[in-house]
């Protein structure tokens, strides 16, 4: 109880409340604008949060992260364009509903499902906290190394059909992380005798280039579309009533969101895909899926909104980010000398609980905002693409230049922006570069300290958690190879 009061005390500050409000409203707005998305917004906001208190800075970013998917459902339903990438499945049933004049019903269902998914995962997180606090200290260097390696492998194999290039890009991320002075013997690595490379390549510069600048270039190269937005009348509360008629789909989707969110590298896409497939297979009206089935919206929106809170579990407990947004947040933790990992649960549990509570309040704020302001909010969907590109490019400058007032940083970001643009044009994944950079750094440090204490390679996995993680790695690789062989066989049979 003391812990709870201590957490409430942290959250009762006016600046934390303001951060929650800004983050949640800002996140919904950003989510509602197709082509921007939370990675761009978080990348731009990162440096601005450095001057804030850890809890304030993190709350703003958590607000954007946790609320953008609510906003992303608006263009997915109204104009068949997902606001964020993870709202893609919402278009399947949301837009057909809009086409037959049920836009308000679809939006209302999306809001209530998202709210249920968000609250469900936060409750799970609160119940998991004592268990995590007990398990997390059992993770030593070798366990964290193996968990990071598992995360990296999962990120790579999750890109089905693109695993090879994802592995190459993750290796590139690992390489970028090694540039500069290495931290043990202080020898130079790939600095080419250039002073600006001696300090290494800043993660935030790379993030801003890959996510924000590349998106600006995509938008500037694109074309504006004329959009017709339907008028919405009436209440948005009916969705809760309709959601209560499908408790099984909602509960299973939220559970899948929590489980998938906890596994590094898996995240929203897999969660909503599995939920949608489950809802369709178990529905009595499965033929309606893709044509405006309410269960389709419930499955997709509940699952994707259950992920953000769950994705905080590996980040907070082990310091291992599972996807791009939590990887960006990791840098905020480091900047404020709050090191996520087992120690955080032992020493700063009030801080962890405050984060959970802020997520809870955030979901309520977002829902209230959406119920009141949807009719005004949908106007942002109409902002022309190229104008948005100008805005993102201008905002990216604040993000990069305010770090160190360095023109070189801006040049590096511009180069990564161009690289990200090419990757996006070719539909190649960007996330492995970022996770390679973050997890590569963790792996280097942890392997070095772990190897100092082992004599034979078998000593590395002689502890139960290390052994379990090692077995999981082997299992994931075996399953991936099996799937590859199976699809190859199917392809051969198909070609006769």
């Amino acid at each position: 109880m003391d812990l709870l009061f201590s957490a409430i005390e942290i959250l009762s500050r006016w600046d934390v409340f303001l951060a929650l409000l800004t983050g949640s409203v800002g996140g919904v707005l950003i989510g509602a604008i197709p082509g921007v998305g939370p990675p761009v917004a978080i990348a731009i906001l990162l440096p601005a949060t450095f001057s804030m208190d850890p809890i304030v800075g993190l709350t703003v970013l958590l607000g954007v992260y946790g609320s953008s998917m609510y906003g992303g459902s608006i263009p997915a339903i109204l104009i068949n364009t997902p606001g964020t990438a993870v709202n893609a499945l919402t278009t399947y049933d949301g837009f057909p509903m809009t086409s037959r004049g049920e836009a308000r019903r679809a939006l209302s269902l999306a809001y209530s499902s998202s709210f249920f998914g968000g609250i469900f995962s936060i409750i799970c997180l609160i119940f998991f906290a004592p268990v995590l606090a007990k398990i997390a200290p059992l993770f030593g260097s070798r366990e964290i190394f193996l968990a990071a390696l598992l995360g990296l492998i999962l990120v790579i194999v999750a890109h089905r059909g693109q695993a090879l290039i994802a592995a190459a890009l993750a290796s590139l991320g690992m390489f970028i992380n090694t540039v500069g002075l290495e931290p043990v013997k202080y020898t130079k690595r790939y600095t080419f005798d250039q002073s600006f490379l001696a300090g290494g390549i800043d993660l935030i510069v790379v993030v801003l280039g890959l996510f924000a600048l590349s998106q600006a270039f995509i938008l500037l190269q694109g074309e504006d579309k004329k959009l017709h937005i339907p008028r919405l009348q009436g209440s948005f509360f009916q969705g809760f009533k309709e959601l209560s008629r499908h408790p099984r789909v909602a509960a299973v989707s939220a559970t899948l969101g929590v489980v998938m969110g906890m596994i590094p590298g898996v995240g929203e896409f897999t969660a909503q895909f599995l939920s949608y497939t489950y809802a369709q297979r178990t529905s009595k009206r499965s033929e309606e899926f893709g044509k405006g089935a309410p269960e389709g919206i419930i499955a997709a929106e509940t699952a994707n909104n259950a992920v953000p809170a769950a994705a905080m579990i590996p980040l907070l407990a082990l310091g291992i980010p599972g996807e791009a947004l939590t990887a960006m947040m990791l840098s905020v933790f480091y900047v404020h000398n709050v090191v996520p990992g087992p120690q955080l649960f032992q020493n700063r549990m009030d801080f962890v609980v405050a984060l959970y509570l802020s997520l809870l309040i955030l979901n309520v704020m977002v829902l209230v905002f959406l119920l009141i302001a949807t009719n005004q909010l949908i106007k942002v969907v109409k902002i022309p693409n190229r104008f948005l590109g100008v805005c993102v490019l201008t905002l990216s400058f604040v993000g990069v230049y305010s770090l160190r007032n360095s023109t070189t940083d801006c040049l590096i970001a511009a180069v990564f922006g161009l690289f990200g643009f090419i990757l996006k044009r070719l539909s190649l994944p960007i996330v492995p570069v970022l996770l390679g950079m973050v997890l590569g750094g963790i792996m280097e440090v942890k392997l070095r300290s772990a190897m100092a204490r082992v004599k034979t390679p078998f000593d590395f996995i002689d502890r139960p958690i290390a052994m379990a993680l090692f077995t999981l790695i082997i299992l994931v690789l075996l399953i991936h190879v099996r799937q590859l062989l199976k699809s190859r066989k199917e392809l051969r049979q198909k070609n006769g």
Partner: protein
Amino acid sequence: MSADLEKNRGSLEIKRGHLIFALMFILLSISLLLQLEEQTKWVLKVKLAAQPRFWPAVSLVGMVLFTGLYILYLPQKKLVRADWLETRKWVQTIEFPLWFMIYVNLNPILGYLPSTLIFVPALIWRMGYRTPIMFKSGVAFSLVVVIVFKSFLDVKIPGGAVYEFFPDSVRNFFILNF
């Protein structure tokens, strides 16, 4: 692994430029790998995992190996006109990093507010917008960005060199807020 790429086939039939990208990527990776000895150190009496050279080597070998396999299993191994058209698009896009760098270089000279007020409308013009509402929106956006980030959030962007020519009372206000 080939099946991995077989799945790619569908998308690669539409998207061209993969081969050029992969060739450029592997060339970069090989050239970096060839400089491994020169650009990293091998320290005596230090375990392999703690060697400064270890992680750059692992990552560069990974880059070469996986990109090599990617090229090996690419369904389209011949360069056609569509590949070059895609590459042209990449080259054309260099215009925007250049705009960005002009904006970056204008800032220390003119200051954050003036350079943003010039950059945003200029790029709006370049994007083909000619209606007054777009320019007004651009100016309003510039003002909001500068006021939110510099005046309220106090992000570290130094004042412009031209501010030095302003009267004392105005100069400090501009340096602190714009």
